[in-house]
């Protein structure tokens, strides 16, 4: 239980700058966006209100709808891919292997690369005329095809591949730390019962890593909604709408297309969507923690 309530002036004072940011910057910006989304603002804010016109336009826009679908596919596969590969790598590294720290560094270093660099390099590697495909073909396998970035149906998976390459190491580190925290007795007991190693990882260790993996997933998910750099560097939203994402849609309309009203409508829909998706989840955690605290 917290230290008994008395007005803690210092604590309150220490949080003032953060309050300021939260209220003025975050809420203020949101309020500003919501207001503008009901106007016909183009290059600069206007105060001519047009009701829900921008929202109607938004949901008639094939690009916007595609961007929502894409960010959903990308988000799910990217987070799941990072979690799965990260967990597998951690489990492998946990098997008392040689050169563990070298492997660990290799798996983690992409996390130091920016999404721009990640996008550029994978764009290059997956470009059929320059990258892996061209190289394999020149070795004699003439029909080899790896054209994900330029293939409308596969481009989104190219983004996932690059994203997983960049983010899996973080999950690996977190999972590995969790595995190292598991009591030796649990291992012994399980081994005595003759449970195969892979079963131990799946049914004994995985559940215990749940909270840590959830936190890692949360860290990754916070990035998903803002996905922008990697798309611009890798595919610029193409071919067609196949890798368009909401953050890019908003950015394009905000500046190049001089369409502030539509951009703010998009942002509003996005944020409200995320909050409705996340709020019940956070509320459940909050209630769980409260229940724990009371017990």
């Amino acid at each position: 239980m917290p230290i008994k309530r008395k007005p803690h002036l210092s604590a309150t004072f220490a949080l003032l700058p953060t309050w300021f940011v939260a209220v003025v910057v975050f809420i203020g910006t949101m309020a500003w966006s919501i207001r503008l989304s009901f106007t016909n603002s183009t290059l600069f804010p206007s105060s001519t209100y047009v009701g829900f016109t921008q929202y109607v336009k938004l949901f008639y826009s094939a690009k916007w709808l595609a961007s929502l679908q894409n960010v959903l596919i990308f988000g799910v596969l990217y987070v799941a891919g990072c979690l799965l590969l990260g967990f597998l790598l951690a489990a492998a590294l946990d098997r008392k292997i040689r050169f563990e720290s070298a492997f660990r560094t290799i798996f983690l270093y992409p996390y130091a690369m920016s999404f721009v660099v990640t996008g550029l390099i994978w764009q290059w590697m997956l470009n059929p005329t320059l990258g892996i495909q061209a190289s394999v073909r020149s070795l004699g396998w003439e029909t080899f095809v790896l054209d994900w970035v330029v293939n409308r149906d596969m481009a989104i998976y190219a983004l996932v591949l690059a994203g997983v390459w960049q983010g899996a190491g973080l999950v690996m580190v977190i999972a590995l730390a969790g595995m190292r925290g598991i009591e030796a007795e649990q291992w012994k007991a399980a081994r005595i019962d003759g449970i195969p190693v892979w079963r131990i990882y799946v049914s004994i260790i995985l559940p215990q890593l749940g909270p840590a993996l959830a936190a890692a997933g949360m860290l990754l998910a916070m990035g998903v909604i803002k996905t922008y750099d990697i798309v611009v560097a890798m595919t610029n939203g193409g071919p067609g709408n196949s890798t368009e994402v909401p953050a890019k849609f908003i950015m394009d309309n905000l500046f190049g297309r001089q369409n502030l009203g539509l951009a703010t409508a998009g942002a509003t829909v996005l944020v409200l969507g995320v909050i409705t998706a996340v709020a019940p989840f956070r509320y459940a955690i909050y209630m769980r923690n409260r229940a724990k605290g009371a017990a």
Partner: protein
Amino acid sequence: MKSMMKLLLTGAVFAGMFAPALADDKPTIEIMSSWTSGGEAAALDIIKTEFEKRGGVWKDSSIAGFGAADAAFQNRIVAGDPPGAKQGVIGLAAADFVGQGLFNPIDDVAAAGKWADALPKSIYDLISYDGKVYLAPTGAHGESWLFYSKEAFARAGIVEEPKTWDEFFAGLDKLKAAGIVPVAWGGQPWQQTKVFNMILLSQVGIDGFLKIYVDKDKSEASIEGIKKTLDIFGKLRGYVDDGAAGRNWNDATAMLITAKAGVQFMGDWAKGEFTVAGKEAGKDYGCMIVPESPGMVYIADSLWFPKTGDAGADKAQKLLAEVVMDPAIQVEFSLKKGSVPMRADVDKSKLDVCAQKGLELMTADNVVPDQAILLTPQQVGLLDDFVDEYWSGGSNDMASAAENFFAIFE
């Protein structure tokens, strides 16, 4: 409230880490541009050198990519701290800034330099708003060009420039058979839209083109023109290489320079890349207006002059406007950039064969403006979306696509 915010914000950061730009009595200007490719930068350098020779101080803020440069520029405007000059096209993108009173007119420079006489009337009208001149035109670009590698054509056994689209596609087949990439395609929406427009002009003619984009005319004839355009446009899909998606225009031009590819549809700025690589028009590469086209689509570049509230910068803006419109500079700039000088009264003898052809079409008024001049930035964006969707969607349903085309004007 404002002063409280000021207090809090400055308090949160250690202050005193920045100094204001040094004040100088020379006219100093910061120029923001996204001309970063070889020919573009060389052309900008012509203006810079002359500007400095006349006593100006040039601060270069180059930002690659029109999107990034636009974002940076608009934010500087919002902050009330714009650069002294910005490179931008003549067209509706500038209109809102002028309408909001954010740009400085350069009327006195224009009057002193007799711009009204030197420039074609259509251009002079486009750089003027409410009777005042605001933009300094640097050059016009023809956008209906088809460049081809002479080496690639020779290897494929093509001896004559194709006169019709049928001949053209026959030529592409020959290139393909010779193991050459027929079309060096830049798979970015803005490039694809330019190809769409040059084909459109070849199918509907100058009046038809203006009817569609100016009058938003949705008649049978217009729809039929769009359909025919989409047919030719769609056929091109079969002649591009796998790496086309997302390719930059200058990378596509490089494919012609190295004779890896046969032809490229592009504006005449591609010549700048050939020039930088030491290739000569008419000798190493050829240029022609696309088949069956009665004229040329053009776009015009200019410098914009935002209000900075600084008298020194105002002076520099005027000096820069003078430099840009200097007849000799107009020619020099065009040679590097690949454009056509804006002034009608310049020495044309130095221009290459392609620029001569372009200038001929301009003076005969056989030109139509690019969509950036005719449409709002929103509509330009929607047009890009439309063309890109058709190109990469792989659909050949021209009837329903033609129907969708007109939705961009709504």
